């Protein structure tokens, strides 16, 4: 299968950008080959220039960028070609799929129109022949009701469907090379697993070479034959997947592999959280019972508003010094739950009891007093800081509200001490957020949330926007703060491996409800609910041997709209015919291990699955 003549060979490619702050050398002389039919992974953290390398090769650089070097595709130097010549190749011989499937489809054109356009441009195909070909490809990427989809607009499809359409469009002309730039980063894990399966299948069936650009070592382990590791615009290491994963040479590669949290708990860094010690005193801390947050969605002036049940009857207790991880895919209501606990969104019903007082009934002023002990850290470190304030001022904000009697110098000293505590140089006190890196800004966010030494900090996807190496440092910082101040965390994330690293107990949410809740180790060793099992089986593990031998659990049905009252009985199809939509109840199946009602797994698995994999977690 591996031919000796490379399909695409990049030699000594440089990419420079002219910016207001001078010339930025994004790519500094990289060379690589892509062989026909192989999958080459280009791995690196943000800003490493991994995307720019291939964008430059395709002639898709931003206007202020210039590329030097040669990019040879079947005897043509792509960099020396005119735009017209390039257009002959782009889309026909080389095609691309991007990270965000919504923004890479034109919103006002129907799927069919966009697909037919590709065929018309490159193969002068039109009419019934072209319709048939579009339909064939949509079916090949396993889009249900493909004929109907051709007449739909991009916004009518879910994220996973849109990415499938993108792949179908990219494959229409049978390209020799498919460039996938973070194709699954914006998608949920279960959908990611399906898209990766699909790409792998296409590569095997059609011999299409794939250049996969990603930051996720797990995805690479699953898909790639050869890997290039990129950092600061140069390739630091290249080799076969086995070489990179089992015999990494460069320190950076080793660091990347170590920093990556692993679902199987085999993280090489040896990071450990302090096990939770049950306190003797029965302290009332945080109790959430039957919390509901419903939104009214208006569909026009006269239409009856629909009810979106973002959080639908969630109950749990948090003990002092404990971390509960809340996992779920997009739309599962985990962020809404966090905001409802903090009363940033008023709950529709249910109670939140904090140290004996019911927060839902407090007035504004009384609630304000409670906020001293309840803090939150957000996902996007840049967006969570006021860009026109210095980071010192941002960290000082809580002191301005709750330590009114402290003098200015005292406050400043407190801020400086806090900055040291979270690993920031106090000399950066007068800097602005845009002068700092994402990881540093996240430390600022954490410093602000912990300066009053609160009792509870909610981390809403606090490490999701960060590179793995930074992610590891922030997790360590959070663990350290917890040990020092006996903090409790509600740690919200879509990433199971991260949640596994930091949580004592884990709660899995689906469509606004808890489907499973258990101790960390119980949950991973003995997952009960089909959804949990599906999630666990979908997360890629950065280990090629394990990855290639694993089987995915594929369940019937797709993540449907939370507006659909039938969505939550997806795992209980025997109750689907009920007049009143049934809400599955949590049952304590083992001590401390709660599982929502569901039908037996055998009834839920997709039929084309040859055999049911019993042991879903790798040993």
């Amino acid at each position: 299968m591996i031919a000796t003549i490379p399909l695409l060979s990049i030699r000594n490619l440089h990419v420079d950008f002219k910016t207001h702050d001078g010339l930025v050398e994004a790519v500094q002389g990289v060379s690589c080959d892509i062989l026909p039919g192989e999958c080459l992974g280009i791995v690196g953290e943000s800003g490493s220039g991994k995307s720019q390398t291939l964008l430059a090769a395709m002639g898709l650089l931003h206007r202020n960028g210039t590329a030097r070097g040669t990019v040879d595709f079947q005897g043509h130097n792509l960099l020396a070609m005119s735009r017209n010549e390039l257009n002959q190749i782009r889309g026909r011989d080389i095609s691309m799929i991007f990270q965000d499937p919504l923004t890479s489809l034109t919103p006002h054109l129907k799927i069919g129109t966009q697909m037919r356009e590709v065929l018309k441009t490159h193969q002068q195909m039109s009419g019934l022949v072209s319709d048939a070909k579009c339909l064939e490809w949509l079916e090949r990427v396993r889009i249900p009701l493909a004929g109907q989809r051709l007449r739909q607009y991009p916004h009518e499809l879910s994220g996973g469907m849109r990415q499938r359409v993108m792949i179908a469009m990219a494959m229409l002309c049978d390209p020799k090379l498919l460039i996938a730039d973070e194709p699954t980063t914006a998608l949920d894990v279960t959908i990611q697993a399906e898209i990766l399966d699909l790409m792998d299948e296409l590569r095997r069936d059609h011999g299409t070479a794939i250049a996969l650009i990603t930051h996720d070592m797990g995805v690479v382990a699953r898909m790639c034959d050869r890997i290039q590791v990129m950092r600061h615009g140069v390739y630091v290491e290249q080799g076969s997947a086995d070489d990179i994963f089992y015999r990494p040479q460069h320190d950076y590669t080793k660091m990347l592999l170590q920093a990556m949290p692993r679902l199987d708990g085999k993280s090489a860094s040896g990071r450990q959280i302090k096990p939770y010690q049950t306190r003797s005193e029965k302290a009332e801390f945080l109790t959430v019972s039957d919390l509901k947050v419903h939104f009214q969605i208006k569909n026009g002036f006269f239409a009856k508003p629909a009810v979106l049940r973002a959080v639908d009857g969630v109950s749990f207790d948090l003990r002092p010094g404990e971390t509960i991880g809340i996992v779920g895919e997009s739309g599962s209501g985990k962020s809404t739950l966090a905001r409802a606990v903090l009363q940033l969104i008023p709950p529709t019903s249910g109670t939140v009891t904090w140290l004996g007082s019911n927060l839902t009934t407090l007035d504004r002023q009384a609630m304000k007093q409670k906020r001293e002990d309840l803090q939150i850290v957000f996902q996007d470190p840049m967006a969570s800081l006021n860009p026109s304030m210095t980071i010192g001022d941002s960290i000082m904000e809580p002191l301005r509200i709750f330590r009114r009697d402290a003098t200015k110098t005292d406050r400043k000293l407190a801020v400086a001490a806090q900055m040291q505590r979270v690993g920031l140089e106090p000399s950066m006190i007068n800097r602005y957020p845009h002068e700092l890196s994402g990881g540093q800004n996240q430390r600022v966010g954490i410093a602000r949330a912990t300066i009053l030494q609160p009792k509870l900090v909610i981390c809403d996807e606090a490490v999701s926007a960060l590179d793995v190496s930074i992610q590891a440092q922030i997790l360590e910082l959070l663990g350290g703060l917890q040990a020092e101040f006996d903090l409790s965390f509600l740690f919200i994330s879509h990433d199971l491996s991260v949640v596994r690293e930091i949580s004592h107990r884990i709660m899995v949410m689906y469509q606004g409800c808890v489907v499973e809740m258990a101790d960390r180790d119980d949950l991973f060793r003995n997952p009960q609910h089909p959804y949990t099992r599906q999630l666990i089986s979908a997360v890629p593990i950065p280990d090629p041997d394990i990855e290639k031998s694993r089987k995915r659990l594929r369940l019937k049905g797709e993540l449907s709209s939370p507006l659909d009252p039938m969505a939550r009985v997806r795992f209980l199809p025997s109750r689907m015919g009920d007049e009143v939509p049934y809400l599955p109840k949590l049952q304590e199946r083992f001590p401390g291990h709660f599982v929502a009602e569901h039908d037996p797994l055998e009834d839920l698995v997709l039929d084309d699955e040859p055999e049911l994999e019993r042991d879903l977690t790798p040993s």
Partner: protein
Amino acid sequence: MIGRSYRENAADIDLTAPKGRSLKQDALRRFRNNKAAMTGVVLLILLILAASVGPSLLPFNYEDPDWSAFRVPPSIESGHYFGTDQNGRDLLARTLYGTRISLAVALVATLVSVVIGVTFGAFAGYLGGRIDQAMMRFVDIIYALPYILFVILLMVIFGRNVFLLFAAIGALEWLTMARIVRGQTLSIRQREYIEAARASGQSTPAIIFRHIIPNLVGPVVIYAALTVPEIVATESFLSYLGFGVQEPLTSLGTLIASGANVFEVMPWLLWFPAGFLVTLLLSLLFIGDGLRDAFDPKDH
């Protein structure tokens, strides 16, 4: 409590930290590198200097006729560099004085529109919901009423006081500013740092004045810079119609209006004030454009 616990390790903390580079300083630096905008700034400063100091340096007054020189074309010998008008008044003195009035009027009106527009828009945008609806419908209603009708009404109320009239025009100009600011606020309100402020117990006015308005500087400055020429033009238009500044007081608009009547016999009476107005408008527009590029570098 915080004072005591942190004082202990205060010795090794140095508070004379280096200053950071704020977004505004960045914008200013980009602005300084913009040649067109800097030309605009230089021209504007020259115009302001000429308008404020110029009239007192001239031997002629803007309202008293020079009995020895009626309808004199521009000449160096007579001392009337811009010529004189039908009444023997020095055109240079009148033009400079007119520029002064036009600039002052624009400044007052813009200031009024910024103050009202920003506060109104930020509150409407942040409070949202029904309050926002009510506030913005109020804006829509005023928008829908004809401008000229207002001016005539205001003339009746304020009489002949030029500055009050233009303060009142500013009080109409704020409508657009309020809409822009509300739109911006709606997007800032979604940002997590606003949520962080709410989560840490800040009051609503504190959030609006500390966290929202400082981040509106970019769009507000840009729009204000573009409002100034608009008001100068409005003033000229109103004066041309006879609503604005009245004789013997003058403004660029009135000068152009009277110059246009006699353009065929005394063309200089139109050319000089028109040249000043065009220079003033162009330099303000260049500055506005430069500010937009400086605050929003992604757009080009």
